[in-house]
């Protein structure tokens, strides 16, 4: 194949494959900024993918599906919020439980829909821009949810760093007691952020089933939720860097897919490991540097006073 074409395919695929992870990473960045990590993001993604698919099948509307998927992810994450914020549960334990709950629940309610077909979201090329050679197809020939994910990057950045709400939210993640003593309600803010994180994961899952694969199958996220949690660290809890991380991951996924279609003589199982190996490598290199940017309250158990 023409090398230029190959690169164009890989990059186009990178943007598309990154979308579910990007949504989730952005959401997790927001809720980790309040000090609550949610390892159940994987479960929220599955909920989004499954419920989004079911609603789309039932109503025929991709948009209703996407909204329902986001809400499903958000509602599931509220359980995490309740356990962690109200009951003072350990975040890791609660998150992992949430993941398995999402996995089991979606396997159950999604079973009748496994072989169904939907239209969902089609590619919507942006007029004029999508005709630019090379760049056009890479950036401007995607589904609407993908465009939305990338537009959310600056929006979330603005929210976190330029608005009053973002300031409160970050304050909760740095010092609950300081946030409280300046008249904020850390628990409520953390709840809202956890809900948002769950919604974003749900939306990421919905994009996967409605726009990327157009089908539903049990466990279809294949650990993307965990990758997202790792990418939050790579992104040093900053949405723009998180987006860069998601794109790197998307690039690895896309590269291995393209290599497989080219039929290179490498085991497909090995190729499928590529994105995960890449994520590990990223963490290896970045762990120390990123620790400085970590919200001070991250992972700390909620107690009565705070």
């Amino acid at each position: 194949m023409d090398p230029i074409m190959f690169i164009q395919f890989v990059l186009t695929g990178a943007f598309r494959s990154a979308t579910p992870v990007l949504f989730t990473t952005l959401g997790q960045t927001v809720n980790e900024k309040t000090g609550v990590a949610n390892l159940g993001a994987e479960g929220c993604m599955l909920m989004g993918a499954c419920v989004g698919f079911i609603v789309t099948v039932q109503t025929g509307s991709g948009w209703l599906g996407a909204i329902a998927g986001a809400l499903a992810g958000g509602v599931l994450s509220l359980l995490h919020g309740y356990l962690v914020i109200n009951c003072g549960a350990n975040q890791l334990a609660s998150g992992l439980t949430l993941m398995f709950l999402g996995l089991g629940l979606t396997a159950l309610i999604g079973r009748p829909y496994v072989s169904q077909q939907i239209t969902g979201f089609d590619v919507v090329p942006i007029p004029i821009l999508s005709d630019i050679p090379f760049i056009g197809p890479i950036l401007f020939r995607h589904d609407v949810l993908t465009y939305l994910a990338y537009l959310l990057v600056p929006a979330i950045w603005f929210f976190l760093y330029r608005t009053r709400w973002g300031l409160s939210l970050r304050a909760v993640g740095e010092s609950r007691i300081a946030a409280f003593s300046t008249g904020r309600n850390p628990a409520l803010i953390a709840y809202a952020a956890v809900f948002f994180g769950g919604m974003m994961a749900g939306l990421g899952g919905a994009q996967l089933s409605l726009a990327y694969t157009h089908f539903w199958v049990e466990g279809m996220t294949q650990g993307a939720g965990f990758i997202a949690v790792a990418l939050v660290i790579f992104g040093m809890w900053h949405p723009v860097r998180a987006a860069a991380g998601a794109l790197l991951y998307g690039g690895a996924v896309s590269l291995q897919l393209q290599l497989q279609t080219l039929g290179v003589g490498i085991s497909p199982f090995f190729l499928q490991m590529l994105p995960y190996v890449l994520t590990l490598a990223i963490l290896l290199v970045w762990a120390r540097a990123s620790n400085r940017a970590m919200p001070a309250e991250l992972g700390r158990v909620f107690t009565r006073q705070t």
Partner: protein
Amino acid sequence: MTDFLVLDGITKRFGNLVANDQISLRIQKQHVHALLGENGAGKSTLMKILYGVYKPDAGTITLDGKLLNIHSPQASRAAGIGMVFQSFMLIPAFTVIENIALSLRDVGIVVDEKKIEHDIREISDKYRFGIEPRAKVWQLPLGAQQKIEIIKLVMAGARLLIFDEPTSVLAPHEVEGLFDIFNRLRLDGYTIIFISHKLNEVLACSDEITVLRGGRVVGSVVRADATESLLVSMIVGDKTADSSTYARKSIPANVEPVLQVRDLCAKDDRNRPALENISLHILPGEILGVAGVSGNGQKELGEVIQGVRPALSGSIKLAGQEIIHTSIAQIRRTGVTCVPEDPLRQGAVPVMSVEENLALSDASSTQQRDWQRMNWSAARSRASWFTEKFGLKMPRLNVAIEALSGGNVQRIVFARELSAPAKLLLAYYPTRGLDIHAAEIVRLALLDYRDQGAAILLISEDLDELFAISDRIMVMYHGQNVGERLPAEADVQQIGYLMTDGKYTPEQEVEHVAS
């Protein structure tokens, strides 16, 4: 005169302990009103009630003629009350602007950082704070953080400013600056409540003084009527404050020093030189007092001796043995013990109970016959023995140590470190934040420890204390030993010059005599 703030019958209980017992208090407008009292007298609790952190069990608060219903810090701030806590409520990872924006009530949805920056600069210039609004808070010294807290309160529209032991984090020369700020604030119409247990500070800056003891008001006096002896008797009640000079021990001249440091160099956390060819020695049964403004290498000196911080060059001999390049455990075994600067964080496990913290470094409560099993009953009885000996007042011994007041934590860690014999004790500000009575107990314990033959490196910012109990005083300046004096022969001025200038020249001597 108008009563600006009236507290009436405020009572607060923690379990069985009555922290505030029917406290009534009147504070005049534009006054600096000092709250004075021993550790545990209930000062912080009373102020936290005023600021809405705790709910009182009984009592009313009236501000400017209006009865307040304070159920949260928010309500308190809305009423115009602001508080600078003992430990600052600033977020280290945030910039000064972000920290201040957090405390403002009327920031728009989109935070206007330019305007906030402008306002900060204005106040900073007016009161000569010299604060850079775009700096991250972790980069700033504690003194500057305190000024940020003040800016915060002023910008949030507070009219009553509460300072809980603001001078405990300041170097001596910064304290005067703070009192200057109090004065300028008062002239601008602010009312100030100032908590301290240092008599000279209270006498230097306040208009009226209220003394608390055991959760009750002993009485209020206006500045003109206040004398040191009156206040002391109010603070300690019928206890006698023994301030007689302490006996010094003569040390034979030919003994070998316990600690011998030669030409030691080391760097600080930011990789700048902290110790520059410092040399010193301490004999057994001797207290070497270290005078110096904090940040002149005192912290690093102790860390290098303990083996926590690497030395760049030089030698440290402990009982004749070189200890540079040996392990921390080895150094501890040789007999070095330390009362750290921040006992809660460096000397204790905050969430563990008092008993557990005491047992941490106590060999006798473990290693009992079978399998290193803990002997909790031994640990418990030892803990009660400790608390009795050091006059600690606390509800129960199984509370997390972080729930105790700072003075109590300090005394617990101190007691623990001194309970076993050691060759060398590094004592960092052992009486900082303690009231007169508690400080006295600690000093006597140090002298007792010395008389048992230990060498003590005493780092303190209280010159009176250094003069009272040191056998020798050394001044540290820019990581060097710039002079040693015998307390009997030196005077405070000399030491003061050495501390601030690193030298004491004949011209200064002339100036000093002339003035």
